[in-house]
């Protein structure tokens, strides 16, 4: 470790059930610099930073901070060492004041052990003035705009007088003017010798502010380069430049007429003017960065969110969908993104989880027919190769892949024409993943129309007939299978479609 390094990360690995999030990551950060950390969704950026912040403990590897080997067990320890972090998800306490939020857990006390509110507010005022943030310390957090909430989080991170501040996509919720303000703060922190690790997806920001750039991919360290010695195209190549190692068996299926047409779908502030067609036998991939509005688009179509404007045309008929029940009636099915939160009913048996959306099919004279249910279970179990000891097994006791197959079966039992799959293979093992891909091909061949959201570019490229790329709530581009490359999709997703001229320029470098 050289004198100029504040932080040295050596051979850090971290696994979660079914996923290797980080493997043997090495990284050194120079003191007093702004170090950008980049990579696709799931590249391991946030995991690595959460290890530094003491939220996760690494499975193996060594962290050296300020020249000392350290173990960071919890956030408290991280703060004591001088590491503070601004998280991507804001977590304000809504009914407490700005000052109380900033100094939570370290409130100044009066002689009698009571909170010294005057001092608390004065300290906050001084801090906010110093950072030129114009917010009243006694406002309730719930009354602040998202941008101001973000600014308070930033002020809080700075208030610890940390020598290393980690910022995880701090600009995802703020406007351009506030970004400029934030960059001013970051530069003045840097002038005081504070080191910043800055996670972002935004190319512009990186080249505006970063001294060094590190790219992670699939949990591995790809490269660390000075910002002056690279450019956008090279960064994108580094971020996506992996071989298509897994085979995605999208087989040829006859593509038929348009079954779903979405025109100018808008949900204020999240999704704007999204239009696309979906045909029978087609798999339409939806790519985009986290927060680009992919899930909101399909959940709006499915009646979970209200839309402000736009129309949905199913099989040539303009259709009003106000609830998931309406959507199902119109032949739609939605496998949601978060299996645990919105998919499985953990304490219930496999049987209920599988048949909850299609119960009328098993009714005879008002009563559910046990024999029919059992027969259906057996048929689905062999069709999707679900590994479960019996239909009475609680679903939470199955593996992630088998839970996912039960949920796929739940939707297939409603006999949908249009199947929407939101991250259908996230967090499941390779075998189950391949089976789900095979099933998707088969369903397309049977004439179903499929929309698949995925954050994995190889999956998108391998499975999709067409690819819709979302960027900041809008359609960033729609690509035919033959025209799509990892680079072109990443460019559309980051809003940096390079024109031919720029590409030419790159070639000559």
């Amino acid at each position: 470790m050289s004198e100029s390094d504040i932080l040295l990360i050596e051979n850090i690995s971290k696994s979660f059930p079914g996923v290797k999030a980080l493997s043997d990551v090495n990284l050194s950060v120079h003191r007093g610099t702004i170090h950008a950390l980049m990579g696709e969704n799931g590249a391991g950026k946030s995991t690595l930073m959460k290890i530094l912040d003491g939220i996760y403990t690494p499975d193996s590897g060594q962290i050296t901070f300020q020249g000392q080997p350290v173990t960071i067990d919890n956030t408290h320890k991280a703060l004591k060492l001088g590491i503070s972090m601004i998280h991507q998800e804001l977590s304000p306490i809504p009914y407490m004041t700005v000052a109380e939020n900033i100094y939570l857990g370290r409130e100044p006390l009066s002689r009698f052990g009571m909170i010294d509110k005057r001092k608390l507010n004065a300290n906050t005022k001084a801090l906010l003035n110093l950072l030129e943030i114009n917010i009243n310390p006694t406002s309730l957090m719930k009354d602040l705009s998202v941008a101001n909430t973000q600014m308070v989080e930033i002020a809080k991170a700075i208030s610890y007088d940390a020598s290393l501040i980690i910022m995880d996509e701090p600009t995802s919720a703020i406007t351009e003017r506030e970004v400029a303000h934030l960059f001013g703060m970051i530069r003045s922190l840097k002038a005081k010798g504070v080191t910043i690790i800055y996670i972002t997806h935004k190319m512009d920001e990186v080249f505006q502010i970063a001294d060094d750039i590190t790219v992670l991919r699939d949990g591995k360290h790809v490269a660390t380069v000075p910002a002056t010695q690279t450019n956008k195209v090279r960064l994108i190549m580094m971020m996506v430049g992996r071989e298509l190692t897994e085979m995605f068996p999208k087989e040829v299926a006859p593509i038929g007429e348009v079954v779903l047409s979405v025109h100018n779908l808008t949900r204020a502030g999240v999704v704007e003017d999204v239009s696309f067609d979906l045909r029978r036998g087609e798999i339409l991939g939806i790519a985009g960065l986290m927060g680009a509005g992919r899930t909101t688009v399909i959940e709006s179509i499915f009646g979970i969110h209200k839309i402000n404007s736009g129309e949905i045309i199913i099989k040539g008929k303009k259709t009003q969908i106000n609830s998931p029940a309406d959507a199902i009636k119109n032949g739609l099915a939605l496998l949601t993104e978060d299996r645990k939160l919105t998919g499985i009913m953990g304490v219930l048996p496999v049987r209920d989880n599988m048949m909850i959306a299609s119960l009328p099919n098993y009714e005879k004279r008002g009563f559910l027919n046990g024999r029919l249910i059992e027969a259906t279970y057996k048929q689905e179990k062999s069709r999707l190769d679900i590994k479960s000891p019996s239909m009475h097994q609680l679903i939470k006791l199955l593996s992630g892949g088998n839970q996912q197959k039960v949920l796929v079966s739940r939707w297939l039992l409603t006999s949908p024409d249009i199947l929407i799959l939101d991250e259908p293979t996230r967090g499941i093992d390779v075998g189950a993943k391949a089976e789900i891909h095979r099933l998707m091909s088969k369903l397309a061949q049977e004439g179903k129309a499929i929309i698949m959201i995925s954050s994995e570019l190889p999956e998108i490229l391998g499975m999709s007939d067409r690819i819709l790329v979302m960027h900041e709530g809008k359609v960033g581009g729609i690509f035919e299978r033959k025209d799509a490359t990892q680079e072109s999709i990443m460019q559309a997703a980051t809003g940096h479609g390079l024109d031919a001229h720029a590409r030419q320029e790159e070639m000559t470098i």
Partner: protein
Amino acid sequence: MASATPPQVLDKSFNREWFNAFIRKYAIVLIFIAMFVAMTFLTDAFLQPRNLFNVVRQISVVGLIAIGVTMVIITTGIDLSSGSVLALAAVFAASLAQQPDWHDAKYPGLVVPVIVPIVVALAIGLLCGAINGGLIARFKIPPFIATLGMMTVARGFALIYSNRPVSGLTDTYNFIGQGEILKVIPIPGQPPLGIPIPIIILAVVAIGAHIMLNNTRFGRHIYAIGGNEQAALISGLNVGRIKIGVYAIAGLLSGLAGLVLSSRVGSGQAGLAVGYELDAIASAVIGGTSLSGGIGTIWGTIIGALIIGVLNNGLDLLNVSAYWQTIIKGSIIVVAVIIDERKNR
């Protein structure tokens, strides 16, 4: 078969696993049997048929409420209003079932068939329950608050309607709570014992509720909402309507319990059944219904009610003071939940 492991080891592990699963599933039944046996040995009177029927007769009112409360808790809700709704239904029903020449009759000279007070009691219960459900499903008021409101409002209406007991009820009406059928159970030296009507009502309702929960779409929807409301919604369930239905059924059963209780004691009183909602919730919880939703059975709840009934009865027979009884009852409820939590881990 061709395993390298010695067979006896396999058997042992299989037996232990099976045994553990059995204990987990039927722990509450075993506790009930243990209590039953203990009371039999500790007192002479406990095992007498008359006493056992008394126990069941006593739990029939709480049992009816508890069946509704079980369904409510399965959806992750709670119903605190059942005791008050019971009282409200009871005073209205009783006022329509008084002897026409009773000196204190609310409607002197009124003669209506017994079906009228029955329908009125059930309708009042249904209405109160539906209001609970509406507040919860449509106005998104937490079940605890909505039913707490109904608890005081219903009790208030009951008091306004009758500030003194409505008594002098007809024999036909009183038959609901006091009657027996099939008087064939022989008792030495006494007239043969029949099966009390309240026990038959409880049995019919319990079996009906069990079938509904397990064998109808509505029943499985109730579990689904408790298992994961968001997932249920996305699966196309009309969550709001189902919740209203569940609370309405719970209210209906409170009304039915009001009929049974007022006819058993021979008068409708606004002060009836204070605190019964807590015994009902306790029965459900002791019987394995999870307050986090999605888990619960009717037979478990009936066993839970029986445990409370046997405990009350046995402690009375043992001359344990009423104060100690409450302490013992409270402790058992907490222990039951601890066992339940461990089971679900």
